[in-house]
Each structure stands twice: as structure tokens, then as C-alpha cells.
């Protein structure tokens, strides 16, 4: 059948956008292919690895299991929305400091899941970190350093992890994505 296209309004990393998306395209495809935000990784495509994790209205989801059209009206935060200009997000800095990234492919998803965890639980126990990141696989098996990084970011008191959603319609179109994420 012919592919159906729909217009949706989304806020991506603080920037409001109106875009046409194909009905059968996932949010992952929309982010990577339509918006060029390739930090969100495509990997298992069955919701097991977490490499495609993004925040939809501050809630972590696998973007490979959500249609782009379902995001109409939502505020999306991807890994590109974590840093503020040249200043890394505290979680990104902690991942660097502990050497948590090996091949790096899973790290965007790990960071986004960790940001969601710290937004809800600023001082997680180790068990809470493990549970919060259970949906993110690391095939380098760098779990110890990743858990250490999240604990380090939490200890540094950097729980204001996630950009607050900007309502659709708010004029932030002139704002570059990287400058509007976390305060």
C-alpha cells in the first residue's frame, strides 16, 4: 500500500518542530532519518537493548517500539539534548571520568536511561541503578564502570538531569538544540 504521511508537532531537545512523518516509521527513524539526530542508536529493534532510548515527556521509552505519529504533541529528549553547549551533562562527565564508554555504541541509551533514573531517584542505591539500567545492554560488558559513573554523578549532586518539557507551540524554534537542555 502507499505510505501515509502525517504532520506532527513535537518538541525535540527544547526546540519546537512541525514535521511530516510516515505513519509506519518509528520515532527512532524519525529522529535519525528525518531530523538527523543520529546520537540515538538503532540496534536490536525489538525493545531489548535500549540503545534507542529517548525521553518522551520525561519518560524513558525504546524509540524503536513507538511510532513517530504517536509522538505528536510530545516533548522528546535525546542524547543530543543532554549537554549544554560545550558543557557536558554531569552524567556525560561522570561516564568520561570512570571510563564507562568502551565501544560507545550503547552509551547514548545508557545516558538517557540514567538521566531518567536520577530525575526520579536523585540518590539511587546500587540495586536501583541496576534496575534503572536493566533495559540497556552493553556488549562490551562495561557494566561496572557504567554503574560507577551513575553513582558518581549522583554523588556529585547533579540530579537535575533532564530538561523540563517545553509545551508545543512555545517559540523556541530559533534556539539551537544544544543550548536548551538541562539547566
Amino acid at each position, binding site marked *: 500500500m502507499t505510505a501515509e504521511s502525517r504532520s506532527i508537532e513535537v518538541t525535540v531537545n527544547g526546540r519546537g518542530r512541525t514535521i511530516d512523518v510516515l505513519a509506519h516509521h518509528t520515532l527512532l527513524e524519525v529522529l535519525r532519518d528525518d531530523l538527523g539526530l543520529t546520537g540515538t542508536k538503532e540496534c536490536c529493534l525489538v525493545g531489548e537493548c535500549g540503545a534507542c532510548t529517548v525521553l518522551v515527556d520525561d519518560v524513558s521509552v525504546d524509540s524503536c517500539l513507538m*511510532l513517530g505519529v504517536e509522538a505528536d504533541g510530545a516533548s522528546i529528549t535525546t542524547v543530543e539534548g543532554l549537554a549544554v553547549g560545550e558543557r557536558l551533562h554531569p552524567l556525560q562527565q561522570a561516564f568520561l571520568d570512570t571510563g564507562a564508554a568502551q565501544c560507545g555504541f550503547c552509551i547514548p541509551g545508557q545516558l538517557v536511561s540514567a538521566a531518567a533514573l536520577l530525575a526520579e531517584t536523585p540518590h539511587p542505591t546500587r540495586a536501583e541503578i541496576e534496575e534503572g539500567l536493566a533495559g540497556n545492554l552493553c556488549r562490551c560488558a562495561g557494566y561496572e564502570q557504567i554503574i560507577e559513573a551513575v553513582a558518581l554523578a549522583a554523588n556529585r549532586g547533579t540530579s537535575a538531569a533532564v530538561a523540563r518539557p517545553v509545551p508545543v507551540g512555545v517559540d523556541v524554534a530559533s534556539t539551537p538544540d544544544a543550548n536548551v537542555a538541562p539547566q
Partner: protein
Amino acid sequence: MRAFAYERPAHLDEAVALLADHGPEARLLAGGTDLIIRIRDGSIRPRTVVDVKGIAEIDGEIRDLDGHLTIGARAVMTAIAADERIRRDHQALAEAALVVGAVQIRNRATLAGNICNASPAADTVPALLVYGAQVVVVGPGGIRRIAIDDLLVRSGVTTLAPGELVTAIELPLPPTPRGSVHVRRTRRRSHDLASVTLACAVDADGTTRIAYGSLGPRPLLVVDETGVLADPESSDAAREARLADLFIDAAPSPRSMRASPEYRLAMLRVLALRALGMARERLGTRGAPA
């Protein structure tokens, strides 16, 4: 992924009409955590996907209504696991919701979707069976309520009529004090389908309900009204004999990669005994010993 048309009806009657028009070519979309996987792998090929999330009459709220808890069909696992009333009165359901997939899946996956997929391994279904949940459905014939036990047929098949969709799930409040628990056996803790998934509820009047999944085409409910399972004075041998009688219909598939039939049957007995102990203990802490 293969192309399809996307519909987002604003009202129930529109959704019912869409389902009637498109018949088996239409599929309902709630959380999408099963649906999108199956469309992508080609195991289903809908021409139309009907998103229930725009329907005004369907929400994800959990409400106290007339002696039962009503869970809207859009309620996701995260919300169910966190709800204080469910954690208090339907603890096995809260525990089951908390082991589905991982965080990202639980943030999208709905209880209604878990029911309608009719997976033999659905983690929330044994809890719904022991609590006697009713599924509220709307279709061309109007509204009706189906006991969860009468809804499930086999993997992917329910007794929902063409054009019917689930709007809510109702959980009766326990008439007497009750202790309940969900336990399961998986190869790893997160993101695995259960080799055995089981819920157990022990009532203060001595009735024990056990429901188990992943040991046959659909989850099964068994009820012990003899009091043998609930009685703290029963011997282990008496309990095991009673369980062996109750589990006579367990028929795990020999073709599954996850676990052999022998292993599943052995673990069913182990988990049932463990769950019985935990449910009795929880009943005891409610100040109403059996």
C-alpha cells in the same frame, strides 16, 4: 517496516466502526511493545493500525468504584506497579507488572495489551486470574464484561468478538483478608519471558487460588477449597500431594527453547510452595491468621 494506515479515533464509536470496517486487517495499538515488533518481523501484516490513545472514553486512570478497582485500558505497567491501592490489595499484580520487560517497556506496555496478546507467559495474567478480574469490552453489540478466565483461549487468541476492544479491567476488592504474591522463573532477571510465572492468593477463609503460566497454551487457574494449602499445620507431603492434583493440566511445550517440560514442571512445584509460604505470611501480617 511494512506500510500501514494509521487511525487515531477520538471516540469509542469511531474505533468500533473502524474495527468493523477493516475486520482482521486492522490492529489495535496501545503501548505497541508487542505490536510493533510483530509488524516489523512480518508475523502480522495489518493494513490499518488503530491507536486507542486518542479515544476520549479510554484512559489510564486507576479508580475505586463500587467495591472494585477499575484500571483504564491505557494504564501502563509502571503506573500499575506504583499504585498504592494495587500494592496493598492486589500485591501480586503490582509485583508482576514490575517484572515485565525493563523500565522502557514498562513505561509503554499496557495491562490491556498484555491480556489481549494472550501470551501463555504473560506475567500479569496469573495475578488477574487469582483476583477474578473482569475485562470490560465495547463492541458493535455494546458493552460487556468477560471474566479473565473466559477470555483466554491460547497464544494470541481470545474470546473477544470481531470489532470489540478492551476499555478497562476491573479488580474486585478482596471480600476477606488475603495474602498474595507473584513469583516467576526466568533465565535472567530482566527482559526475559518466564519459564514459569505464577501468582498465589490465600484468603482468610482458607481458600487458596494459584494461577500459572508458561506451562501450556494459556495460563491456568486452580482453586483449593479443602484448606490443605492454606493451613499452616499441613505437612509438606500433604501440600505437595494437593498441588500435584491441582497441576494435573500443566502441559509445557517440548518445543520451547527457554526450558524443558521436565524443568518447568519441577519449578512449578517449587515456585508454588514458595509462593504459598509467602502468601500465608502476608495474610498473617494482616492480623487475620487462617
